[in-house]
């Protein structure tokens, strides 16, 4: 069983991010790229599959700053292989469509029964990466998954997805299959620092050059700006009793609670 | 060997049964030795130390004209003297003998590498032979022994030693720091495991000391200076003023009654502060000598002179009380010294988490001894500081013992005295008594039986040391709750107690290090005086003529202290009756024409054996005081100090021979 995890490096929202007034783009100096949370879950799900079935787990990301650290961390957590997609210079596909084509091209060269990726990303809110990739490869695609249970014997997988309000649906699909992971069955594990360093020293990450894919995006980012603070909230002051009383009044006004 | 005579060396390789021969190839070693320079004869033999083995050497000395003997066998500790005697009996100076230790240094430590072990033995023998060629004859010096003995410390050990010697007709000076003899034993109520009354068995001995015509008893005194060496020590004693002339005081104690302070208000040292005394006092009713002491810290007559002195008025002996009395420093001549300076109990303030000094419910075992003692502050009743009788009592063993944070060693007596205290408390109060222990150590005569008895009496034994002591109320004045891991039950126990007794361990006296310097002996890391050999010379020290008795050497109980005191007295007697003593031959000497008088050696000598000869300012070493430690030899910057048996030439040749082999074997060459 070969599981491939596609990880995406995104700006770390915990850090103060600034927009460059001149270019209208994010200021590179303020950016700290980390793997997106859903991708971490995709990796965790893959590692759980590995622990259950002995599958090999190949982690892939593009060679953006921090990509190497993400791969070392994945190896430290237990991934089998780690690939850095490169063209010999910092590689930044300008759209999910282009990225899907690149990954499709890469996957032609590596074995894959299951391709896991985060269900969405900050620059892929619709979660189209998995869909586009599946379309390119001609594979089935299931998204917002919370559990993936492949069966080597039948060469199929049972995939659980979560819909709004806690509803769950269970699918069965033949392999190979592309899955967008919402959350893994258990929270992503922690990689001890020593093992990350060991992974770094082991030189187990491999760079794979993928030829440029001609792609003409029809959509472009024109400008970015920080949210403007609105005047939404009203601060309630006074003793707890007063505050509670006022709160009841407001809720009643809005007819959210019965008078 | 006369000067210029060539060394003729005989080498004897001992099999020591299979101890050596089982590992080393003794035949090939003997052959190897035979090829070494100056070696005339070389043999191996099953037991060199046996009579035929010894005879073999004597015969070779006669037949081959040997003038040096090397025996490759065991440690010099065991048989160096044996073979020296063999040499002497065949007319060769006994110091023309060299021992090579191929048993401990080769056979035993390398028993799994026989080949290499044999090679190492070759190296050792070669080095020994090289050294033997450079040996020089030595003549041992003798000193006469003064028949008087100084015993320092008047506890049970000192008392026993003094009485034994005095009964043998020897003059004894017994010097005790406290105002009375008796030591710690006098503070106890009962002794384990027989529950004898401590006073009943101790006080007759104390009185015997006080009355013995051969004993000069100096209490309230300490030794301040010791000069000389075995046979002729000159000792200076400081006699502190007790403001009463001992020869005049009849011990009527009227002065105490009449003291201007009507009530006892000074914390009694003897009662560890649990009881009170007056500024003029005797420590306890059976004190010996029965002479009062005026405490200079609290007696206003001594301190300020402003007192109406009713004590003087009431005293029936003219001039017995003398507030002008001064320190005196008498000097005495003795030939031997017995140190019986005892111990102190561990101060549990050092383990603050047991709450000693913080919570009134916490006591030391010695304090409880005083509470239990009929002549103690409560007349033998177990009453707490708050006046109540305890209903639940805990005794924690190993306080200040078996603990890297305090003392590493086992104090040996605590298990037994803790059980004794448990028994007595239970007997007198009916309280529940919990002993918190790690291991019960009861290896003496009647000890295990006593352990059984105390258990049968209903004393609880919890295997687990108390790890936490918390007051039941925030003010800390009431009960304490102790936590222990009952390791046999595998469960934590929290027990509220009215009284917590800390079974404190025994430690060396606080001034052990100064005393050690005074008497030129050594202290272990813990501060106990070190015996010359733990098994074969347990009461001797490395300083000839100074012997040890009792707890100053290591923690021990009363029977062991008494037995050791007897042994120390016997050692002293043996010396006195022999009348003289041979000095160790390995002393250092200064070559007068080579010495530049730089004085480097003088302050370094740990035995104060080096002085400057006044006329030319050259260093001189007193042979009787020199212990052959070699410090001066190493330090002399112009190489003008030599040491018999350890001459530079001998050592360097030995080392060089050793290195040759290592280099030749290609090992260790870096």
């Amino acid at each position, binding site marked *: 069983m070969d599981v491939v995890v596609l990880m995406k490096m995104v700006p770390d929202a*915990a850090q103060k991010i600034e927009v460059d007034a001149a270019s209208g783009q994010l200021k590179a100096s303020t950016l700290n790229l980390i793997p997106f949370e859903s991708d971490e879950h995709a990796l965790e799900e893959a590692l759980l599959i590995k622990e259950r079935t002995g599958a090999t787990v190949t982690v892939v990301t593009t060679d953006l700053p921090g990509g190497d650290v993400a791969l070392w961390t994945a190896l430290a957590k237990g991934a089998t292989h780690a690939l850095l997609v490169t063209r010999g210079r910092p590689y930044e596909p300008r759209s999910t469509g282009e990225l899907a084509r690149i990954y499709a091209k890469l996957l032609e060269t590596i074995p894959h029964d299951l391709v896991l990726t985060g269900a969405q990303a900050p620059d892929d809110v619709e979660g189209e990466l998995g869909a586009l990739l599946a379309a390119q490869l001609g594979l089935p695609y299931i998204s917002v998954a919370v559990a993936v249970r492949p069966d080597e014997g039948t060469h199929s997988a049972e995939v659980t997805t979560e819909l709004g309000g806690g509803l769950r649906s269970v699918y069965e699909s033949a392999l190979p299959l592309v899955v967008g992971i919402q959350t893994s069955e258990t929270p992503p594990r922690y990689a001890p*620092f020593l093992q990350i360093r060991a992974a770094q020293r082991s030189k187990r990450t491999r760079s794979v050059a993928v030829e440029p894919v001609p792609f003409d995006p029809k959509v472009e980012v024109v400008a970015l700006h920080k949210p403007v603070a609105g005047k939404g909230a009203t601060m309630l002051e006074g003793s707890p009793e007063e505050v509670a009383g006022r709160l009841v009044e407001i809720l009643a006004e809005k007819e959210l609670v019965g008078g | 060997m006369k000067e210029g005579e060539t060394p003729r060396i005989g080498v004897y390789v001992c099999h020591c049964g299979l101890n050596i021969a089982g590992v080393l190839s003794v035949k090939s070693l003997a052959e190897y030795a035979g090829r070494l320079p100056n070696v005339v004869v070389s043999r191996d033999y099953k037991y060199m130390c046996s009579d035929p083995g010894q005879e073999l050497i004597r015969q070779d000395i006669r037949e081959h004209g040997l003038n040096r003997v090397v025996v490759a066998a065991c440690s010099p500790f065991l048989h160096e003297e044996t073979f020296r005697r063999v040499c002497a009996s065949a007319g060769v100076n006994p110091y023309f003998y060299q021992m090579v230790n191929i048993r401990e240094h080769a056979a035993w430590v390398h028993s799994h590498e026989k080949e290499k072990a044999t090679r190492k033995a070759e190296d050792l023998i070669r080095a020994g032979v090289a050294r033997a060629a450079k040996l020089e004859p030595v003549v041992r010096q003798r000193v006469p022994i003064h028949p008087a003995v100084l015993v320092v410390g008047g506890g049970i050990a000192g008392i026993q030693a003094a009485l034994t010697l005095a009964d043998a007709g020897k003059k004894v000076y017994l010097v005790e720091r406290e105002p009375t003899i008796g030591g710690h034993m006098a503070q106890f109520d009962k002794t384990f495991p027989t529950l004898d009354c401590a006073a009943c068995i101790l006080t007759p001995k104390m009185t015997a000391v006080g009355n013995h015509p051969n004993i000069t008893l100096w209490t309230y005194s300490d030794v301040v200076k010791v000069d000389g060496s075995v046979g002729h020590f000159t000792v200076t004693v400081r006699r502190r003023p007790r403001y009463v002339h001992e020869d005049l005081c009849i011990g009527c104690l009227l002065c105490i009654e009449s003291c201007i302070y009507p009530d006892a208000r000074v914390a009694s040292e003897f009662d560890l502060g649990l009881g009170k005394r007056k500024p003029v006092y005797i420590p306890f009713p059976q004190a010996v000598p029965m002479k009062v002491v005026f405490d200079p810290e609290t007696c206003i007559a001594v301190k300020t002179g402003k007192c109406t002195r009713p004590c003087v008025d009431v005293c029936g002996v003219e001039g017995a009380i003398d507030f002008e009395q001064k320190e005196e420093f008498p000097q005495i001549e003795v030939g031997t010294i017995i140190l019986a300076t005892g111990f102190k109990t561990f101060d549990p303030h050092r383990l603050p988490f047991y709450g000693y000094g913080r919570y009134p419910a916490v006591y030391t075992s010695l304090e409880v001894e005083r509470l239990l003692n009929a002549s103690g502050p409560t007349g033998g009743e177990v009453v707490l500081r708050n006046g109540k009788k305890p209903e639940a009592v805990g005794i924690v063993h190993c306080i200040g013992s078996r*603990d890297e*944070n*305090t003392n590493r060693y086992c104090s040996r007596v605590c298990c037994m005295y803790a059980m004794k205290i448990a028994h007595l408390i239970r007997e007198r109060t009916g309280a529940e008594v919990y002993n918190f222990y790690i291991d019960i150590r009861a290896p003496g005569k009647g000890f295990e039986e006593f352990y059984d008895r105390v258990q049968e009496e209903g004393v609880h034994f919890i295997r687990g040391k108390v790890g936490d002591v918390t007051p039941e109320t925030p003010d800390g004045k009431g009960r304490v709750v102790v936590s222990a891991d009952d390791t046999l039950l595998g469960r934590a126990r929290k027990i509220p107690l009215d009284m917590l007794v800390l079974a404190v361990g025994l430690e060396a006296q606080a001034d052990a290090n100064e005393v050690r310097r005074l008497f030129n002996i050594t202290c272990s890391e813990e501060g106990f005086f070190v015996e010359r050999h733990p098994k074969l010379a347990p009461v001797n020290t490395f300083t000839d003529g100074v012997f040890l008795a009792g707890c100053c050497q290591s923690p021990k109980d009363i029977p062991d202290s008494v037995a050791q005191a007897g042994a120390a007295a016997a050692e002293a007697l043996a010396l006195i009756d022999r009348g003289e003593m041979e000095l160790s031959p390995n002393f250092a000497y200064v070559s007068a024409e080579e010495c530049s008088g730089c004085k480097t050696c003088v302050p370094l000598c740990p035995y104060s054996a080096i002085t400057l000869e006044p006329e030319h300012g050259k260093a001189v070493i007193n042979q009787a005081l020199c212990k052959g430690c070699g410090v001066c030899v190493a330090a002399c910057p112009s190489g003008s100090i030599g040491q018999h048996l350890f001459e530079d030439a001998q050592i360097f040749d030995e080392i060089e021979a050793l290195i040759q082999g290592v280099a030749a074997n290609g090992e260790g060459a870096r």
Partner: protein
Amino acid sequence: MDLDHVLLYPEGKSLLTCIQCGVCSATCPQEAFMEYPPRKIVAMLKAGLIDEVVQSGSMLKCVSCYSCQAKCPRQIRLTDLLFPLIRGRMFEGGGIPAELQKAFLDVQRYGNPLGRSTSERSDWVARSKVPIRILADRPGPVDLLWNVECYPSYHPRGQAVALATARLFHRLGLDFAILGSEERCIGDCAGYFGEFGLLDALIEQNLTTFRKYDFRRVVTSGAHAFNVFAHHYPGYGFTTPVEPVVGLIGEELPKLRPMLKTSVPHKVTYHDPCCLGRCMGASALRCYFAPPRKLLEAIPGLKYVEMAHHHENSLCCGGGGGGMWLDTYYRDQGMDRLSERVVKEAVAAGADVLAVTCDYEVSRFEDAVKVLGYDRKIVVRDVLELLDESAGGEAAV
């Protein structure tokens, strides 16, 4: 040192000398909740049953309070060596609660366990009425490098303490500076939970920063950083003297005393943090039991009372060794929180103020006060806040 190699080192070999006296378990504040309390863990280690210990989760309950280690008669290094090594094993098999994992990841990424931006680390400085020098802005020699630490830098209550500290430094005329956004976690939780790789990386990174500047001594806001400085940094060649802030201010008391004019009419008790006392060992010379008490007693109007557990016997706030991020886990395990036990003792002692000096404690104890519903009975203040108040607070600088 790996657990497998423990016995190769003298510190580890001491394990073999354990006499199973049980002092460790008897003194352990979490003993009741551990499947395997400390004594048993040592026995199991000796018997080679380490995996059972790792799997039991007992080690998650150790809050590195040093009680066992400080009292161990064999000086077995349970708190700072053996337990971290055992916990280090837990990284292999999982079993580390998510909250704690996140704290480690945040330390890895941001140098603080709160997951806050490094650039915001010195935001609190803007609120200070007294000048606070940041070395990156104004390099050059300085006497005192103040290691502010994470909670005082980011947590609102911690920031209040940091501001009070700055005012006291200013009043005393101390020449001090901070690292600002260059400061990183000193490594406490990593070191005591066995994330030695992270500790190592943090130390290397911090030392690189320290080497850029010229300072004579270091003062730490809290107890934990002080402890890590004392135990781990010298091994990396860092020998600059380090003092906790109470130690430093304690020495300045003669100068401070005349400034303490405002009465603080409260009954105050003080919680001894593990990392300023016990952690230095039973025979330690560098315990800070006296300075905070002396400081408190110097405040006019203040009446000092002692809790049942104090000095080397003090309870732990439960925040050490990762405990700060295990509250949810503890709750799930049905355990009572140590911080609540301390607050109860403080109230029982009749105090209306619980004074602390450890950077974790203000927030921990305030939570406990709220959980216990003691809001009206007692408040939690840092010793420095009380001193600052007595010296006139913000209004007087």
